[in-house]
């Protein structure tokens, strides 16, 4: 398998913008980096600008501003891109009357790869038995697998996959997770977009969250969820409790006439503070924030990178 030195497979998106004619900014000054040897989840609701960003990375859409590079070069300057970058963009880029095998063989011919490689990648994605059938008879899931096969054709160090789990059944999604993990463990760069967090949550090392064309957050899952754990506390004397907690430099949100949401303290610390202040407590609950909630909160609010992480909204 291809040994990859760090910068060779690194994707750098630098201040990238795209304004389609007569439309709003599809992508707005977006910057992030994707490192080799990891799976990076590219998340955002539908219409967030994920596909446009990936297409700019791949040289299909011309940026209005900024630039995107793979291993230091813009995509259009890569010599024989299939050998460096494998991309699966949509499951419909096939001639319906052509067989999967022939589709891949055409790609082999362009890239100067032996034609036998077409059968190899069909085996990897589990389509070998049906590879000689015309694509028009394929299900959505089979087309996704074919798109993946095409991406793997040149044994590339970088994989860019747009919503690869769409149309896959649960078994297929599990298979895809295993494949992505294996590809990353081989040192490849894997960038995978999704509008569904649970699809990438278990497989991604890092996550880039996009909303309305802007970067909302990026980092490892641990980094993103850190500091979002909360303690919900209920007391008949909520004002005095609030004052006592404020002395502990906690981040406090009033969530009801008798309740507070506290961030930055453990429930033991909150309980201890209440005890010392002599405040009666009726409820003391630690709430672990999960990524799903974070994702919804980050992408439903107007995007602002400076905004604090979500506190006690209705979750």
């Amino acid at each position, binding site marked *: 398998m291809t040994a990859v030195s760090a910068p060779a497979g690194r994707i750098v998106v630098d201040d990238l913008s795209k304004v*389609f004619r007569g439309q709003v900014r599809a992508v707005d000054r977006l910057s992030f980096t994707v490192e080799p040897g990891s799976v990076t989840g590219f998340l955002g609701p539908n219409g967030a600008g994920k*596909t*446009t960003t990936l*297409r700019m990375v*791949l*040289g*299909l*859409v*011309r940026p209005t501003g900024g630039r995107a590079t793979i291993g230091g070069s813009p*995509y*259009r300057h*890569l010599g024989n*891109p*299939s050998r460096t*970058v494998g*991309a699966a*963009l*949509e499951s*419909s*880029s*096939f*001639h*319906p*009357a*052509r*067989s999967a095998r*022939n*589709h891949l*063989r*055409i*790609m082999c*011919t*362009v*890239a*100067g790869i032996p034609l036998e490689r077409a059968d190899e990648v069909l085996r990897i994605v589990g389509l070998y038995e049906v590879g000689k059938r015309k694509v028009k008879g394929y299900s959505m899931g089979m087309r996704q697998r074919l798109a993946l096969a*095409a991406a793997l054709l040149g044994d590339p160090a970088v994989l860019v996959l747009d919503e690869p789990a769409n149309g896959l059944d649960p078994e297929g999604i599990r298979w895809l997770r295993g494949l992505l993990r294996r590809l990353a463990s081989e040192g490849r760069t894997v960038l995978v977009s999704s509008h569904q967090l649970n699809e990438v949550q278990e497989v991604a090392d890092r996550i880039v969250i996009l909303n309305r064309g802007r970067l909302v957050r990026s980092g490892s899952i641990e980094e993103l969820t850190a500091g979002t754990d909360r303690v919900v506390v209920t007391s008949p004397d909520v004002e005095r409790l609030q004052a006592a907690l404020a002395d502990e430099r906690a981040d406090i949100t009033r969530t009801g006439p008798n309740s507070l949401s506290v961030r930055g303290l453990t429930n033991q610390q909150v309980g201890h503070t209440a005890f010392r202040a002599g405040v009666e407590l009726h409820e003391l609950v630690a709430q672990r924030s999960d990524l799903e909630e974070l994702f919804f909160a980050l992408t439903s609010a107007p995007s602002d990178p400076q905004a604090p992480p979500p506190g006690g909204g209705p979750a």
Partner: protein
Amino acid sequence: MIRLIRAEFLKLRTTQVWFWLLLATAGLSVLLVVGGIAPRDGVRTARQVPDLFASFAASGPGYILVFVLGVLGVTTEFRYQTITPTFLQTPSRWAVTTAKMITYAVLGVGYALVALIAQLAVALPWLSARNISVDFGNSQIQHAIIGGFGVIALFGIVGLGFGALVRNQIVAVVVGIIFLLIIENVLLAIPVVRKAWPFTPNGGVQAILHTTGTTEVVDGVHLLPLGGGIVVLLLWAFVPAIIGAAYSMNRDIT
């Protein structure tokens, strides 16, 4: 570039369009020979033979078949979005367009060859039965055959360039056929405007394939000389292809 051209041939071979258009080419060639010899005013002397062998390339339906082949060669990729993997593998629009131009010019030669073989297969026995000798050493017959190959090869590029310019398959095929079959002839019927006709694709074709008789098409409209016809057809082949590669093919692929 060799890989790209080989891939273009493979793209064509793995679908069926080429076969039906080739069948139509052979069928049309035979029909043109029958139509050229059978009627009372058909070929009766050796002097009429060159035009018979030029008939496929000189007829609208003939060069339109290869025009359509070229149009499909690029617009099918946009219709089925295979243009996405094509450009992912070959980011240079110029390289893709050039490979396609070479491929469809070569294909044009192939189609012209099939047309010629079909015509010879029918015409030679028939003409010899009428005691009309066909002399391939005759310069006018050579002119008709070589000119026919050139015209059809160039029309592969005309179609390809037009397809690259328009991108939309249905629009490109319909507009192309209407222009080549109808508008060009309407042009010829309008005074003053008809002076432009020699510079249309058909005007170029007729100038290239003209071997005998008058150069006057209608009142006051004369065919260009051979060289002029070649230049006209080359422009129709390369100008749309170059504009297509530079602008149309370079638009965002979304």
